[in-house]
């Protein structure tokens, strides 16, 4: 399976669309240094979908912004490499980034009302996205916009091109945002909670479009979400983030069926459908720590049932199981031998 090659840099380096190595994005605030992204590594192959899961404040969006070169002061990418299609983009200038964004790599945000300019017609915004990156006549650009709109399932695209963002519903607006991301046929699309604000049936439609797109065009997707069940149906591999670090990473089925990290296990156990109806849910005690106050050691230790004195030191990112692609950052993971004993 392609999935397993994903996490071994070197082996899949040639086919990887995106490789992130030891990325650190820190924010230098008056209150102290916030380590929003702290030593994050992963890679995505052509046509693959990576689900990046975490709660608010876990650094999942900042990881996406770092890859897009969108980190503003007081934040800075202080370490690490971002390799897009074999090209190291880490030290790019603002101009180089601009030629890359919306062209080779695109991003879709949570709130489509914030990403579309409310005073410009859809066609103006879409054509601009094309002409910014290549020399092309307006007619040809307009034709491409129309195709992109019909590709994401917007009926009567010619009329819709002439409309303003407020004339669209939430789901339609998100489709327009996706269509804009598709315009220049990017190699990678980063989706930051694109369906969180949408209704269930509309979410289903968007997931359908994205999945189709990935299969047909081979675009790689990075899907940032807090919802494990969306990732279960969509992604090839999953990375779970907690307090700026990836705490567990692996193939989707592997990770969801045999979670190793106590945090992943806690998240999965707290999903209502995994609990006996009407009985109290299994819950993770406490709340996400402030990124200013983690100190050394495992960030999850305050909420963890399995902590020992050992956890005061930062645990390494290892694969305790036979499957080398399933990695966890924990001294006391839920390994399968132990499951067999307790079962």
């Amino acid at each position, binding site marked *: 399976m392609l999935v397993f090659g994903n996490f071994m840099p070197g082996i899949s380096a040639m086919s990887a669309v995106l490789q992130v190595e030891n990325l650190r994005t820190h924010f230098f605030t008056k209150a102290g240094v916030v380590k929003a992204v702290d030593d994050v590594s992963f890679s995505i192959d052509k046509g693959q979908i990576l689900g990046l899961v975490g*709660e*608010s404040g876990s650094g999942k969006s900042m990881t996406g912004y770092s890859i897009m070169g969108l980190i503003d002061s007081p934040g800075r990418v202080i370490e690490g490499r971002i390799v897009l299609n074999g090209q190291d983009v880490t030290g790019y200038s603002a101009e180089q980034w601009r030629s890359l964004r919306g062209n080779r790599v695109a991003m879709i945000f949570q709130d489509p009302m914030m990403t579309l300019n409310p005073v410009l017609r859809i066609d103006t915004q879409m054509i601009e996205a094309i002409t910014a990156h290549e020399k092309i006549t307006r007619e040809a650009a307009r034709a491409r916009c129309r195709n992109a709109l019909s590709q994401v399932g917007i009926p009567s695209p010619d009329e819709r091109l002439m409309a303003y963002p407020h004339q669209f*519903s*939430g*789901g*339609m607006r998100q489709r327009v945002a996706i269509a804009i991301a598709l315009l220049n046929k990017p190699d990678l699309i980063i989706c930051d909670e694109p369906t969180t604000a949408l*209704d*269930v*049936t*509309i*979410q*289903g*439609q968007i*997931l*359908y479009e994205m*999945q189709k797109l990935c299969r047909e065009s081979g675009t790689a997707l990075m899907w940032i979400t*807090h*919802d*494990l*069940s*969306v990732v*279960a*149906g*969509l992604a*090839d591999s999953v990375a779970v983030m907690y307090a700026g670090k990836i705490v567990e990473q692996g193939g*989707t*089925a592997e990770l*969801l069926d045999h979670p190793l990290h106590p945090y992943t296990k*806690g*998240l*999965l156990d*707290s*999903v*209502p*459908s*995994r*609990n006996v*109806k*009407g*009985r*109290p*849910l*299994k*819950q*993770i*005690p406490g*709340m*996400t720590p402030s990124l200013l106050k983690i100190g050394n050691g495992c960030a999850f230790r305050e909420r963890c049932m399995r902590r020992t004195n050992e956890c005061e030191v930062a645990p390494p990112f290892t694969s305790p199981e036979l499957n080398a692609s399933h990695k966890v950052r924990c001294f006391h993971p839920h390994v399968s031998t132990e499951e067999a004993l307790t079962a």
Partner: protein
Amino acid sequence: MSTSLLELKNISKRFEKKLDIAGRFARSLGAGLKEETVHAVDHVDLTINKGEVVGLVGESGCGKSTLGRVVVGLHQQSEGEKFWRGKNVAAMTADEKRAMQLEAQMIFQDPYASLNPRYRVENIIGEAPVVHGIINAKDKSAYVAEVMQRVGLDPALSRRFPHQFSGGQRARIGIARALAVKPNFLVCDEAVAALDVSIQAQVLNLFIKLREELNLTYLFISHDLGVVRHLSDRVVIMYLGRVVETAPADELFTQPNHPYTQGLLAEVPSLTVRKKDFVAIKGEIPSPLNPPTGCHFHPRCPHAASVPGNKCKTEQPLLKQIAVNRFSACHLNQ
């Protein structure tokens, strides 16, 4: 029907946008302007029994929040009757009405917008019980501490302001405020939607615990079917202002009857389904300003074409009993 706590009969809520003076003038000159009416809730019957947890599910704009507000009395219904403990609310004396309003409390979705930012927690929770004479003003601190403990907040934080709390703690403050006037019935409008997964489980557990301790009745409004399934005894599905199906929770989730319910359940992402092929319910949710004729769901329904005589387009299906305690509004059931 002696056990029913609340009964809604044929309740409708319309919001009308009156023409302004320019609009009225233009109309008198022959412009085809009309007053716009939104049928947020359209002839809904609902009975909630004592001790029951009813889940109210629907997508945005289906009128579920409006119905919740009508239930607690924040909105006055445009049409229909409301019975509280078997008594018609319209015929109640002012005192009885006030007692009813205290008994039915609401918990709002947004734990940021629903708390007064300039009040200390002590006042947010303690104001209402003092005003309503449930406690004396001098006992306020002790009473607030008791309520805070009940919802899992540290009473030492009672002098703080809402912005000093996290989202999960704010949700708890909202719950504490509702509990402070000793209600029997809580309407929870998307009470956990804004919370992170691990915090959501904590708050849901609090709801389960409170129900057991205080013998509460809930109307649990949510778009999250997983949460509703876990908590509810009975589920009501709404679409564009109308109830399309009601059934005991287990039956609804195992054998949904209405095509909309079936579609909704198929769309819910699940942890057990891997790399699934997403198939979408086609079409958008229509605007409640101009709902489709007949069955509101017919433009999106996969079965609409197979019903003889174009009935789905012309005739509104009524909510009919299809099994014990199960009702569905669909022409396919005939």
